[in-house]
């Protein structure tokens, strides 16, 4: 018991990034309810994505939170208390597939910069989705590290505009987030 306690104490102070997947009833106001909970309790959301699921009355939120174990435990417990929350899972403890989509408009006034950006985009398996005299827009998908790397790479050309969706994620393997709350 003692050893567990001290171990827990050590863990508590380290800040980690967690990906929390939340299955919610697709009711009006549910996003406000979740977002309000984070604001009220002082938890920081790094990113949040919301979208439909396999079932029309359910929505999935993928929330990226930074915090220590104690905060994360509270986030999960407080989310679980909400009536419209069906299931909460901390994906970072499981193996999961993470993806983020990024649209990035890059300054490219001449052929050489254009061709260079196209080359980079190919390496990162991105797509050129729009092209103009002065710029081109790249769509790039992957985990956040990959997108960060690409953004760093093209920063010198001049990033005119960028939109990132934030992370969305699913567990690997046949496991699904469906079961009722314990």
């Amino acid at each position, binding site marked *: *018991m003692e050893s567990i*306690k001290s171990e*827990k*104490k050590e863990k508590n102070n380290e800040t980690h990034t967690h990906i929390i997947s939340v299955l*919610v*009833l697709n009711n*009006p*106001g549910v996003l*406000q*309810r979740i977002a*309000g909970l984070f604001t*009220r309790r002082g938890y920081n959301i790094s990113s949040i994505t919301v979208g439909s699921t396999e079932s029309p009355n359910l929505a999935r939120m993928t929330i990226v939170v930074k915090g220590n174990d*104690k905060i994360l*435990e*509270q986030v999960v*417990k*407080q989310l*679980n*208390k*909400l*009536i*419209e*929350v*069906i*299931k909460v899972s901390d994906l970072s403890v499981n193996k999961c597939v993470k993806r983020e989509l990024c649209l990035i408009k890059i300054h490219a006034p001449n052929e050489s910069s254009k061709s260079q950006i196209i080359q980079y985009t190919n390496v990162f398996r991105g797509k050129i989705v729009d092209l103009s005299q002065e710029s081109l827009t790249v769509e790039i998908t992957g985990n956040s590290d990959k997108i960060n790397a690409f953004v760093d790479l093209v920063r010198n050309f001049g990033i005119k505009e960028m939109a990132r969706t934030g992370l969305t994620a699913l567990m690997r393997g046949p496991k699904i987030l469906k079961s*009722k*709350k*314990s």
Partner: protein
Amino acid sequence: MKGAEAVIKALEYEKVDVIFGYPGGALLPFYDALYDSDLIHILTRHEQGAAHAADGYARASGKVGVCVATSGPGATNLVTGVATAHADSSPIVAITGQVPTKLIGNDAFQEIDALGLFMPIVKHNFQLRSAKEIPETIRSAFNIAKTGRPGPVHIDLPKDVQEEELDLDKYPIPAKVELPGYKPTKMGHPKQIKLASSHISKAERPVIIAGGGVNIANATSELMQLAELYSIPVCTTLMGKGSFPEDHPLALGMVGMHGTKPANYAVSESDLLIAIGCRFSDRITGDINSFASHAKIIHIDIDPAEIGKNVRVDVPIVGDAKLILNNIVSHLIKMNMNNNNANREWIEYLQSLKKSCTPKMDYSDVPIKPQRIVKGLMNVIRELNIEKRSIITTDVGQNQMWMAHYFKTHFPRSFLSSGGLGTMGFGFPSAIGAKIAKPDFKVISITGDGGFMMNIQELGTIADYNIPVVICLFDNRTLGMVYQWQNIFYGKRQCSVNFGETPDFVKVAEGYGINALRITNPEEIEECLKEALLSDKPYLLDFAIDPSEALSMVPPGGKLKNIIDPITEHPNEKVICFDEIKRRFLEKDSNKNEDTLSEELSESEKDEGIKV
């Protein structure tokens, strides 16, 4: 059938017998349907009164209290009452009218985003968009309010939904509702129960903190069993008052900022802390690092989020307190776990501590000491033999802490107080709800002059319905708790705590046709209380108490053993009157005019002119 009638039908299905409310434009169809119903509607004088009354009804009875208010300002006026119920896990259903759905979002007359407004202060809320949602939603609302950790549920009811035709045969009130995201845990984990039992059997300095959850779960007899089985001393939180009879040899009184010395010492020195249905608020723990620092902590709570939120916990047990305590007791008995009086020394130590700080109550001072009133109240309750049939509600502030500290409570749901939110103005209207819930009980509303004036308009309610609530006003013309803190922590700089000499509360009561007495002599206390309690009419007792009286306390965030004495000093704040305000403002204006006229007025002269 119209939607509004379906709402009434659904409320009747939930066995609602009384609604506290206040009508308005967006609720006209609802009130029209109420006309044909047997439901009793108590018209309060302010929506806040309705919310507190519903809350008092819920706390006294354990049933769900219902309050209604119209859209916009009606809804905002409910907010304080609903938040109060939320902080103390009291089951109420609050229904607000709303502008017709097609107008929602248009900033219509008396429109407010009630759904968003109530969201952070309720267990759950709903906005109905069509009448066919009514039966299931109201069933769900009551189910959510009263199960698991109880709490308020809010339903926003647009006017057109109330008027929409609904075929109840097609959309019947469901016998059972399925909420896929709501499954409160009731049974404690057997492994944790075993572990807790083993800790209890080995403890040498155990102590129980009984919180409001014990009262809510009706777990008082189980608590008694556990305490007596191993002679474990019991202290309570404010909300836990009544969960353990306070004249019991094992009772230590309230713990925390305004706790008793034995309770605070017991928790600080314990080697095992059994916390049941309490959430370790800052008013209980003080400095979190020194709180029960030598103890293993067993935390029993129905809300998993409360466990580990504020203090580290060694044995978490999620579930219903009654079932869990029952399981622990039967496990201890079955395993014949005997601790061979390992805690005898501990009990003796606490008993001697208890003896050494028995509070003095028998003052004959004029102005009256509050302790003397509390003593008188206990005497009268004993004499009239109404211990089992009386309910005390308190307001917030000194009156509340005096009652918590000095008044011995014996039964659950007999001491109602706003603990979590600390809502001044709660005491009096909640007494109205308690009296309606328990008509054969004597209900005594203890309040200070500040809190009483926050909902003084409800005198109209008790007068009109002839609700025999006895109001005991601890009248010191001072915001006592603020004054006490200013004295201790802000160098006696009293600011905005003096209420002056008005009103004459006896005359105010008489204006409503309510019997009232002003009591200045401590020898009259018992006699007046008896008269008021036996009159079976609303009654106001205005006790002129000593404004310098204050209670010892632990400074916020301090160690629980660091109990400091109050500074008892007569309030001396000067109140400025309007004439003085007017004089200063006019002077300011004339100085400004002079400024523009003559540039030569120097800076220093200007300052002097404004100060005075």
